């Protein structure tokens, strides 16, 4: 074989993958199919079968991956727990009476719900059920109501726990707990940006958000106090997982943290939310569907990425880009732009699995004046934010569709218009994090 053969095979495989995706083949299946053909073409049948024999169960039983189904279960228990209503009431008591307050309460409670739920769609759906009727009843415009919830829901994957962040950590061999810690300030920045977006929207169009009455101090205090189970669960999981940050040594692994989180969310659901067997079974069923969906993609990606690595295509691409002497920041901006385009086609997890093996070596080969680990973590946070953007921008924008499913009286055009201010806030945030990596790195330094 000549030296170019594997590269052509790698590029051809990628094109074939895109073709299969366009033809409705599930992402997991397309990855497994192309990966299998490519692997066999390069290495032969016997090594491929040996790889499947050892590899597929290995993916599912990898202790670091065990965190994923546990986080999913935690999120599904949270969704059925009734804690979402408490959160919204509590946030409402804090900021509801202010200008645009209900929308801010929706964003805030989405972020808080994200601390016990690693899924953006579940966060958007759960909070929409609670917050949307209240905003509409008070006379909030359709665009602001749905826009704030779609954007707020996207915080579900940014606020730890986050399944895509776990996958990034595993692909790039980074520390999951550190990535979670690093996501913290950027998430706070997102909330701030969304608040500004709400305020500006309301200032431009005061009719879009009538002022809500302010409750008595006593009732407001009671509503805020009622969110304690969420705070408690978050503190146990987050502090326990980041033990070395808080008191010098880790209390438990991310997987154990997820187990404790699921257990305590289940207890909260059963006591505060009166979840019964039926609710538990529904949560288990949803967890089964989501786990299967994610792990089949992980298995497919394992095979595809084994093939891709053998073609050395990622290394060659990295070498070309690094050797071209382009300013590192420009490369990152180009990657971010590409992610935003890809977000028009794909879900966040598939994007991460497809692109990180290619982009990560590129970024690691460039000099940003950061250490290796810092570069990896900063890039991970950046990737997470831009893949999350795909949830709230047309045409795929799954969050938009989720919210739309609850807001029958709001047109799609209104919702699309409603997310624009939030998208602008997000672009500002991405620019800030590119310009100041310290936003992502301050807590882990």
């Amino acid at each position, binding site marked *: 074989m000549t030296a170019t053969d594997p590269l052509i095979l790698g590029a051809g495989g990628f094109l074939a993958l895109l073709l299969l995706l366009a033809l*409705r083949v599930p992402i*997991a299946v397309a990855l497994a199919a192309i990966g*299998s053909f490519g692997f066999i073409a390069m290495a032969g049948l016997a090594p491929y079968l040996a790889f499947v*024999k050892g590899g597929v*169960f290995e993916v599912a039983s990898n202790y670091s991956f065990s965190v994923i189904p546990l986080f999913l279960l935690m999120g*599904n228990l949270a969704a059925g727990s009734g804690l979402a209503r408490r959160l919204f009431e509590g946030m409402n008591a804090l900021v509801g009476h202010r200008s645009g307050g209900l929308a801010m309460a929706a964003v805030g409670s989405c972020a808080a719900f994200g601390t016990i739920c690693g899924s953006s769609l579940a966060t958007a*759906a759960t909070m929409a059920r609670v917050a949307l009727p209240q905003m509409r009843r008070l006379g909030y415009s359709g665009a602001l109501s749905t826009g704030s919830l779609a954007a707020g829901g996207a915080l579900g994957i940014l606020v730890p726990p986050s399944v895509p962040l776990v996958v990034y950590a595993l692909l790039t061999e980074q520390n999951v707990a550190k990535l979670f810690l690093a996501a913290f300030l950027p998430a706070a920045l997102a909330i701030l940006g969304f608040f500004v977006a709400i305020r500006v929207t309301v200032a431009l169009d005061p009719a879009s958000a009538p002022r809500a009455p302010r409750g008595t101090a006593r009732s407001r205090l009671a509503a805020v106090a009622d969110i304690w189970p969420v705070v408690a669960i978050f503190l146990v999981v987050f502090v326990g997982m980041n033990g070395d940050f808080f008191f010098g040594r880790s209390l438990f*692994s991310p997987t154990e943290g997820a187990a404790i989180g699921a257990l305590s969310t289940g207890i909260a659901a059963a006591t505060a939310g009166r979840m019964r067997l039926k609710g538990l079974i529904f949560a288990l*069923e949803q967890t089964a569907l989501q786990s299967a969906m994610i792990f089949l993609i992980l298995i497919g990606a394992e095979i595809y990425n084994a093939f891709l690595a053998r073609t050395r295509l990622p290394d060659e691409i990295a070498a070309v880009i690094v050797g071209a002497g382009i300013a590192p920041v420009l490369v990152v901006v180009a990657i971010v732009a590409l992610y935003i385009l890809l977000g028009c086609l794909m879900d966040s997890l598939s994007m991460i699995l497809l692109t990180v093996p290619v982009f990560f070596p590129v970024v690691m080969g460039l000099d940003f004046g950061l250490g290796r680990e810092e570069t990896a973590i900063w890039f991970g946070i950046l990737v997470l934010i831009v893949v999350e953007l795909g949830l709230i921008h047309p045409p795929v924008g799954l969050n938009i569709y989720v919210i739309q499913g609850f807001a029958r009286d709001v047109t799609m055009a209104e919702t699309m218009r409603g997310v624009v201010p939030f998208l602008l806030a997000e672009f500002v945030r991405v620019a800030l994090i590119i310009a100041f990596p310290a936003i992502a790195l301050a807590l882990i330094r």
Partner: protein
Amino acid sequence: MGGAGENGADGEAVDPGAAALAPDAADRLVERVALAAALAGSGLLLLAIAVSAVSIVGRSLPELAGLLGLDWRPHPLPGDTEIVQLATGVAVFACLPYCQVRRGHVIVDILTRHLPLRARSTLDLVANLLVVAFAAVMTAELSVGAAERQAYGASTMVLRLPEADAYRLAALASGLLAVAALYTCWRSVREIRSGHPVAVLDGGAATEP
């Protein structure tokens, strides 16, 4: 309350004109069996949770006792990570058939969502055949893996859990995935023939994380 799935969040376009065919007895049977496997699988997650919780509590007890001035050192649960690994490994495979039956996989349908049902079902048939093939390869290789591990008595480091058993269960679940995928091929054929979608038990699909 629950995930976003039941609200059509999967982006799957439904032909408003074409009424779904009601599931028949065979549809129900496949769905029930796959659901049972999925619930057994996610039940294993509960086991993993219990084991982790006991382990964490167990190893913090000496410290808690120390705070009270007691010297109490109960044995921590050893090898909890091994149970968690094997349990989640088997659990994941047990969930795969149900996802296949419920059309739960992530697809990119931006180019094809406006095609007529027959065209979409034809493409789905191709995808389902690919799942049959891949599930068959996994079943065969996991069975070989189980036999090999049986032969040299592979077991986990601490608890000496037999890995062959975990592989056997995963192979069994992969086999079930192959059967479920064959069934979805047949379902696609029925949709192509009749021009009507075949409804799954309660509609909807899983959603992305």
